[in-house]
C-alpha cells in the first residue's frame, strides 16, 4: 500500500523531471508549472489542513509573503535568492503570529480567522504603496539567469519533491501521528500528552515556509505582482481545493488533486470559454457528492475494501504490519 504510493509519487517526479525532454512549448511549461506548483502548495496546505485537520483558508498570506519578500528585498539591493529566503522568514513570522492567535480557536472559528488575517495583509499591501508599490504593482526579479519557464518549472518540480519528502517524513513520524490525533480529537490528543498548540504551530511553520517558496517561484515566473493577485483568497482556496479534492490527509492526494484540477481547469477554459467556471464548479460538486474522501482517499478506500484486510481510510503509513 504504502510502497505503491511512494512509487506513484516517484513516477510523477521522474515524469516531471523528464518532461523538458519532450515538451518544447513555454505554454505547456506554464501549465505544468501550475500543476507542480499547486501540488507543492497543496502538500504544504495538507500538513495543516489534512494531517492536523485545521482548515486554513488564509495561506495566501504566506504565499504573498514569499512573493513580496522576493520583490521588496531584492529591490532593496539584496540578492534574489537571499531575498526569497527573507520572504520565507517573513512568512514563518506571519505563521507564528497567525497560529498564535488562531490555534486557540477550533473549527470554523479557526478557518474564518485565517481568512481574516490574509485579508488584512492584502488590504495593507494595497495601501502601503511606499513598501509594496500598492496596486500599481511591483517588479519581481527572475530567480535564474535564464529565467525561462523551463527552469522555473523544474524548480516547481523540485519544490514538489521537497514537499513530498516532508509529507513522507511527517506521515511516518511521531509528529505525524500527533497531528492526526489532533485532527481526530484534540481532547484525546491532550490526554496522551500531546502539546496540541505546539504541534499545530510546528506544522503551520513548515507549511508556511513551503508556501512562501511557492509564492516566490510564482512571482518570479510572472515577474510582476499586485496584492489582489498573490494575496487573494483565490490562492488560499485553490490550495485547499486541490488538497481536499485529491484527498485531505493522504500522502498522494494533493499531487493527484493538482494534476487533475489544474489540467482540467486549463482544458475547460480552452474548450468552454465563458462556461468553464460553471463546469469547474460542477466538477467540485460531483467530487464532493460521489468521492467523499477526495479522489485519492476514495480510491484507496475502494481498493482496500476489495482486499481482505480492513484498514482505516486515513491510514497513516508506518510500521503497522508485524
Amino acid at each position: 500500500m504504502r510502497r505503491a504510493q511512494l512509487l506513484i509519487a516517484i513516477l510523477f517526479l521522474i515524469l516531471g523531471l523528464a518532461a523538458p525532454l519532450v515538451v518544447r512549448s513555454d505554454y505547456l511549461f506554464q501549465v505544468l508549472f501550475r500543476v507542480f506548483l499547486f501540488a507543492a502548495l497543496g502538500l504544504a496546505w495538507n500538513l495543516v489542513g489534512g494531517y492536523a485537520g485545521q482548515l486554513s483558508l488564509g495561506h495566501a498570506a504566506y504565499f504573498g509573503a514569499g512573493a513580496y519578500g522576493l520583490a521588496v528585498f531584492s529591490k532593496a539591493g539584496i540578492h534574489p535568492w537571499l531575498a526569497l529566503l527573507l520572504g520565507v522568514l517573513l512568512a514563518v513570522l506571519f505563521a507564528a503570529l497567525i497560529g498564535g492567535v488562531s490555534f486557540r480557536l477550533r473549527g470554523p472559528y479557526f478557518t474564518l480567522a485565517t481568512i481574516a488575517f490574509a485579508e488584512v495583509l492584502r488590504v495593507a499591501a494595497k495601501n502601503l504603496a511606499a513598501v509594496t508599490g500598492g496596486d500599481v504593482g511591483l517588479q519581481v526579479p527572475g530567480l535564474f539567469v535564464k529565467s525561462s519557464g523551463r527552469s522555473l518549472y523544474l524548480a516547481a518540480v523540485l519544490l514538489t519533491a521537497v514537499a513530498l519528502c516532508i509529507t513522507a517524513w511527517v506521515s511516518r513520524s511521531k509528529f505525524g501521528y500527533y497531528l492526526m490525533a489532533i485532527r481526530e480529537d484534540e481532547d484525546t490528543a491532550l490526554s496522551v500528552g500531546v502539546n496540541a498548540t505546539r504541534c499545530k504551530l510546528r506544522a503551520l511553520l513548515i507549511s508556511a515556509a513551503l508556501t512562501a517558496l511557492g509564492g516566490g517561484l510564482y512571482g518570479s515566473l510572472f515577474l510582476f505582482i499586485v496584492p489582489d493577485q498573490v494575496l487573494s483568497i483565490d490562492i488560499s482556496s485553490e490550495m485547499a481545493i486541490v488538497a481536499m479534492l485529491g484527498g485531505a490527509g493522504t500522502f498522494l492526494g494533493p499531487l493527484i488533486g493538482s494534476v487533475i484540477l489544474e489540467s482540467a481547469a486549463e482544458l475547460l477554459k480552452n474548450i468552454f470559454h465563458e462556461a468553464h467556471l460553471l463546469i469547474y464548479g460542477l466538477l467540485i460538486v460531483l467530487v464532493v457528492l460521489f468521492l467523499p474522501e477526495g479522489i485519492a482517499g476514495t480510491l484507496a478506500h475502494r481498493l482496500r475494501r476489495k482486499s481482505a484486510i480492513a484498514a482505516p481510510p486515513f491510514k497513516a503509513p508506518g510500521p503497522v504490519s508485524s
Partner: protein
Amino acid sequence: MRSAHASSAAVLACALALTGCQGGVSQKGEGSRNKIKIGTITSLTGSNAAFGQAHKNGYAIALDELNSRGGLLGKTVELDYYDDQSRPDQAVQGVSKLVDLDNVPIILGAYSSENTRAIVPAVTQKQVPLLMPTATADNVMETGSPWTFRICAGSGAYATATVAFLKGMGAPKTMAIIYENTNFGQSNAQAMQAAAKQAGIEVVDTEAYQASTPDYKALLQRVKARSPAVIYFASYLLDASTLMRQAEQVGLNPAYYTSAGTGFAAAEFPTPDKGAGRNAEYTFSVSQWLPSAKWKGSKEFDDKYVQRTGSHPAYHAIEAYITLLAAAEAIKKANSTDPKAIRDALKQLDMPETTFGPIRFDPKGQNQHPVLITQVQGGQYKVVWPADAAESKPIIPTPPWTKR
C-alpha cells in the same frame, strides 16, 4: 491492490504526457495555412467581465469588416480568445498559450491596466508584439519594452490635459483626488498629483477607495470638509454612478467635477438606466472617443454596435475595434505573419484617418491620441476642450445640488 494503484497512476501519467506532446506538436501546423490567428486576451469572466464583453463586441465588428473585405494576405482572420478571468496570472498564462500553442504572431489586450502590466514581461520575453487597447495606467509602458504599443492615451496625458483645461478656465487653487485602489486608479492619482503640483494647484485631499462597494458617503463627507475647488475622480463606471449619486446626498459642491475618463466617460454614465442620470450633469471628463466625435466612421461604428448589442458603445469597445484594425494594417504592411516584421510595421504604422483619429506610435510605442475634455450637458457629452475641437462652451462653476 498494489498493481491496481500503480496502473491507474501509470494511465494518468501517460494521459498527461500524451496531451502534453499532442498539444505541443499537432496544433502548430494548421494555423498558417488559410487562416491568420490573432491572439486576444481579455476578461470574459470575473469582476471585469462587463468590459471584456465590450472588448469582444468591438473586436467582432472589426473582424466582420476585415473578413468581408477579403481578410488579410488572402487569408481569413480569426480571433483566438484567452479569458484571463480578470486575474493577472491568468493573463500571463494566456500569452504562453497563444504564442506557444496557437502560434499567434501578435497579441491584443488585456483589458485592465493590472493585467496588461502583468503580460508585458511575457510578450517581451517571447518577442511578440502586444497592442494595448484600454490600459491607461502609465506603468504599462514603463519597462520600455520594444514590443509594446498602446492605442489609448495614458494617465499622464489625462492629468496633463485636465490641468491644462483648468488653467484655461481660471486656474482653481485646490483639488481633491478620489480614486479606486487598483492599478488604474493609483496610476491616475499619482499622475494627477504630479501634474497638479507642477501647475501650482494644491492637492488638499487624496482618497483611495475600495471599488464596487455600496456606500461612499463618509468618504465624500471627508472631501467636503476640505472644500476643494476641483475634484478629480479615477473610477470605473459602476462607482462613478454611485459616487455622483452620493455626492448629492452629502451635498458636495466643488466648482469642477473632473475625472480620468473611464467611468465618467462611458456612454452609459449620463443615462438614467445604466448610469448616474441627471447626477452626471456638469461633470467634466477626459475622453478618448465619443460616438459624436468628428472622426470618420464614429457614427457608423455606433450604429453597428447598437445593432449588435442594443446599446451604445463605451470607448473601450472602439479601442478594441481600432486595435484589431491597427493590427491588421500592420500585418498587411509587413506582408508576413512574422512577429518581428509585424513589430517593425507597427513602428512605422501611419493611419491618418481612423474612427479613433490618427494612429501613429511614438518611439516608445505610445499612440499620440489626442485627449478631449467633455462635459455632460443636457444628458449628452459635449467636447468643451481643446478649443479647436469644442462643440460647446463649458458651464462653470458647477451649480450646487440644491440649485439644480
